[in-house]
C-alpha cells in the first residue's frame, strides 16, 4: 500500500541569531489514509519543526517529504494546520467568516457553497449559536473547536495539529480529545498530531512515533488502541513509552503513578 505521506530521512536545521540548530536528524515515517498519527516527544525534540516541514513552511536540509508521491515544496490548502495558539483565528472575522474565508481564499469553493459547508462544520463542533460571534468573545476551548472546524471544512488530505489542546485546562482538554475522536469516527480524516503528553498520545493516536531530543531522532513507533492497557508482557503502554523515551532508570516513577 502506498503511504499518503512519507517522510524519508528528514534532517531539519534552522538558524538562530548565533547558532545553527539541528532540530531533527534523519527522521522517517509513513502515514496512511485515516491514520491518527501522533508524534510524541519531550520539548526540544523538533516535533513542531517537523510538523512545520510537513506543512511546507520549512525545507528539509536532507531527505524528502512526499504527499501522494509528490515532493512538498511549500504551504498549501491540502495540508491544513491547527495551532496551539488561541489567536490562530482571524479576529476581524466572525466564526463563520473565518471558515468561509479559508474556503474561498484557497479557491476550494465559491462563496455560497463555502457558507453552506461552514454552517455544516460549525454544527459538527456544536457552535451553531456562536457562528456570528467574533473570536475574542469565545473561550479557549471554543476557539480551538472553531480552528478544528475550519481545518476540517477545508477537507484537506492531512490535518496537521500542533499541540492543539496544550493550552487548555485538563477537563476541557479531555473533552476535546473525545470530540476529536468522535469527529474522526464520522469522517475518518487523516491527522498528524504533535504532543508532549503521553496520555494524550495514547488516547488520540492509533500509531505513536516516539522521538528523542537534541536533535530529534526516531526512538520507536508503537500502536495504540486508545487506552493504556498492558501488553503481552504485562507492561502498560504508558510505562513502555516512558521507558523508551527516558530510559529504564525512571521507570519506578511511572509505576508509582499507576
Amino acid at each position, binding site marked *: 500500500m502506498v503511504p499518503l505521506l512519507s517522510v524519508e530521512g528528514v534532517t531539519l536545521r534552522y538558524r538562530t541569531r548565533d547558532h545553527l540548530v539541528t532540530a531533527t536528524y534523519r527522521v522517517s515515517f509513513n502515514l496512511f489514509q485515516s491514520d491518527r498519527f501522533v508524534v510524541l516527544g519531550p520539548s526540544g525534540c523538533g516535533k513542531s519543526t517537523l510538523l512545520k516541514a510537513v506543512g511546507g*513552511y520549512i525545507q528539509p536540509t536532507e531527505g524528502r517529504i512526499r504527499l501522494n508521491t509528490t515532493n512538498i515544496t511549500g*504551504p498549501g490548502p491540502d495540508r491544513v494546520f491547527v*495551532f496551539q495558539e488561541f*489567536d490562530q483565528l482571524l479576529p*476581524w472575522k466572525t466564526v463563520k467568516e473565518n471558515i468561509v474565508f479559508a474556503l474561498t*481564499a484557497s479557491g476550494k469553493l465559491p462563496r455560497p457553497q463555502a457558507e453552506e459547508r461552514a454552517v455544516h462544520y460549525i454544527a459538527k463542533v456544536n457552535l451553531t449559536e456562536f457562528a456570528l460571534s467574533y473570536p475574542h468573545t469565545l473561550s479557549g476551548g471554543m476557539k480551538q473547536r472553531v480552528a478544528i472546524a475550519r481545518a476540517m471544512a477545508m477537507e484537506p488530505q492531512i490535518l496537521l495539529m500542533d499541540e492543539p489542546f496544550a493550552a487548555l485546562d485538563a477537563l476541557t482538554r479531555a473533552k476535546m480529545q473525545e470530540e476529536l475522536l468522535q469527529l474522526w469516527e464520522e469522517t475518518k480524516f487523516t491527522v498528524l498530531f504533535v504532543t508532549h503528553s503521553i496520555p494524550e498520545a495514547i488516547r488520540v493516536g492509533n500509531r505513536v512515533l516516539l522521538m528523542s531530543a537534541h536533535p530529534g531522532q526516531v526512538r520507536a513507533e508503537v500502536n495504540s488502541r486508545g487506552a493504556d492497557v498492558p501488553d503481552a508482557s504485562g507492561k502498560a503502554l504508558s510505562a513502555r513509552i516512558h521507558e523508551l523515551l527516558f530510559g529504564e532508570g525512571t521507570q519506578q516513577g511511572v509505576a508509582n503513578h499507576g
Partner: protein
Amino acid sequence: MVERTELFHEVSTAGFDVVEKPLSAWEKLYDNGAVRKTALLAILAGAWELYARWLGNPLLVPTFSATVGALFASVASGALPRAAVYTISMLLKGYAAGLAIAALLTAFATGTRIGADLLETLTAMFNPLPSIALLPLALVWFGLGAGSVIFVLIHAVLWAVALNTFAGFRSVSPTWKMVGQNYGLSRASYIARILIPGAFPSILTGLKVGWAFAWRTLIAAELVFGVSSGSGGLGWFIFERKNQLLIADVFAGLLTVILFGLAVENLIFKTIESRTVRRWGMQA
C-alpha cells in the same frame, strides 16, 4: 488527620435582598461619559463668560456670548464656512497624497530589506522635523499657494502613517501569517486580507496621528500665508480678523478649529474604531 463528617446544605431560591435591579435614571446619566463631559463644558463656558464680564475688555477676552454671536454672524455672512471649506479641501488633498506616498513606501519596505532600511532611516530623520519648519523652503520651491501647503501636509502625514503601518505589519502575529500562507494566498491578497487587518490597530493610530499633525500644520501654514497672500483658509480668517481687531471673530475662528478637530476625532475616528478594532477585540 481529623476525621470529619461530610456536610450538605440546601440552596435557597428566594429571600435575597437584591439579585438584579435596574439602576436609577440618575445613576445611568452619571455613568454616561458624554453627559459628564457636556456638563463640564457648560461649566467652563460659564466661567469664561463671568471672567470676560469681570475683565470688561473685549479686545483682550471677549465674552462667551459675544464669541458665539460672532460665530453665528460669520457663519451667516458665509465668510467662516468659505474659509472652513477651503481649509478642509486643502487638508483632504494633502492627507490623501500623504497616504498614497506612505502606502507606496510601506509596500516597498515590506517587500525588500533595503526598502525597510530606507523607510527606517527616512522616518528617523524626518519624523522629528516639524512640518512647519519646511514651509520657507516649500515657498521657495513651489511659490505661494496650494503647492507649498500640500508639500508640508504630505510631510506631516507621511512619516507618522508609514512608520505606524510598517511597525504594525511587523508585529502581525506569526500565527496569522502562517494561517494566511496555509491558504495559498497571492502576495497582494495576503497583504490586503491578512497584513492590513492584522495591523489595523497600528494603522489607525498612524492615521489619527497623521491627521492631527496635518490639521495643526495647515492652520499654522495658513497663518504664515496670511502675511503675504490672500488664500482664505481658517488660519487666514483668524489672522485677518486679528488685524482688524475683531477679537470675538478671532475666538470664533479658533472655536471652529477646535470644533472640527473634535468632530473628526470623535465622530469619524471613534466610529471607525468601534466598528473595527473594538468589535474585533484587538483593542480594549
